[in-house]
């Protein structure tokens, strides 16, 4: 008869596992990274002149070193920026001061009037990052709300709940057209 092997004492197993658990709790982080995504433009080409854009198609947003906003030729406020941007981008009454639209055939949406409007954002070097993000946030919010409206209208869903192909159609219909000026000092440091 084979000798019975002695049982391994597993009493300290829990302690070892606890030790490992605490090690991982301390060395790891749980924060999910989130933020505002942007795509930088490629470096400017010296040979090609900047495209000619009509005055009515540009929405000027300037921020000075004291974090004051200057929107389309007048002092602006961060609270009204979103609505102003929405009106600029959608041009609901086809007013002649607001951007032109061009007809485009978008698969999944049909012919849609895509706005030619461009938001031109210019910052002083002394602007605080906080203000910059707020402006970016408001501009993004305006685009997102317009996209949500269109998605609700065409597909009866929110933009974030759409299928990939539908979402791409909406993205084409309402692009994020934010142009950031080459950096310069516009209000001293």
């Amino acid at each position, binding site marked *: 008869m084979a000798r019975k092997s002695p049982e391994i004492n597993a009493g300290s197993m829990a302690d070892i596992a606890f030790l490992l658990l605490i090690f991982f709790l301390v060395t*790891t982080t*749980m924060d999910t*990274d989130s*933020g*505002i995504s942007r795509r*930088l433009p490629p470096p400017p080409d010296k040979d090609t002149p900047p495209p000619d854009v009509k005055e009515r198609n540009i929405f000027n947003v300037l921020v000075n070193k004291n974090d004051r906003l200057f929107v389309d030729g007048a002092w602006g406020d961060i609270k009204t920026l979103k609505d102003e941007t929405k009106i600029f981008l959608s041009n609901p009454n086809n007013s002649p001061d607001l951007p032109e639209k061009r007809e485009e055939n978008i698969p999944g949406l049909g012919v849609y009037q895509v706005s030619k409007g461009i938001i031109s954002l210019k910052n002083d*070097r002394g602007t605080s990052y*906080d203000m910059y993000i707020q402006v970016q946030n408001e501009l993004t919010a305006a685009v997102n709300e317009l996209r949500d409206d269109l998605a609700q209208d065409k597909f009866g869903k929110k933009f974030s709940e759409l299928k990939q192909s539908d979402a791409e159609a909406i993205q084409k219909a309402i692009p994020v057209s934010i142009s950031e000026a080459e950096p310069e000092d516009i209000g001293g440091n």
Partner: protein
Amino acid sequence: MARFKKDTSKSAPGINTSSLPDIIFMLLFFFMVTTTMREVTLKVRILPPGATEVQKLEKKSLVSYIYIGPPIQSRIYGTESRIQLNDSFRTVDDIGEFIYAEREARDEADRQLLTTSLKVDKEVKIGVVTDVKQELRKVGAFKINYSTRKGAIAENR
């Protein structure tokens, strides 16, 4: 005698702890899967601004981080905003090299998808950030993400 025996058999049985390690291991695996290793020790203070229109960063392995903020040890390094790459203070000129190194570390197929996450303190002046962005444009790292907290804008004030 009979009374004696009755008393000893009445002592409460010990709780079986043999499954305790399994429970703890389960917790351990949960934390290992849901969390990420802390990669760098922050030498700059980062309190990101709040924003409402945030998107989650997918695929953490394809994100490289640039930290900008005032140094934590302000007695030694001053209060001027500094750029931290990996574990040390760097200047704007080192960004190109940093991005190349980050690209080298990834698979060839994934290099196009590399995103640069800018973790910037809310009190930093935008000038520094603009310089960094210009450098990123030069090396062709166009996908960026401004790291923010999720929260109402009013909290920033």
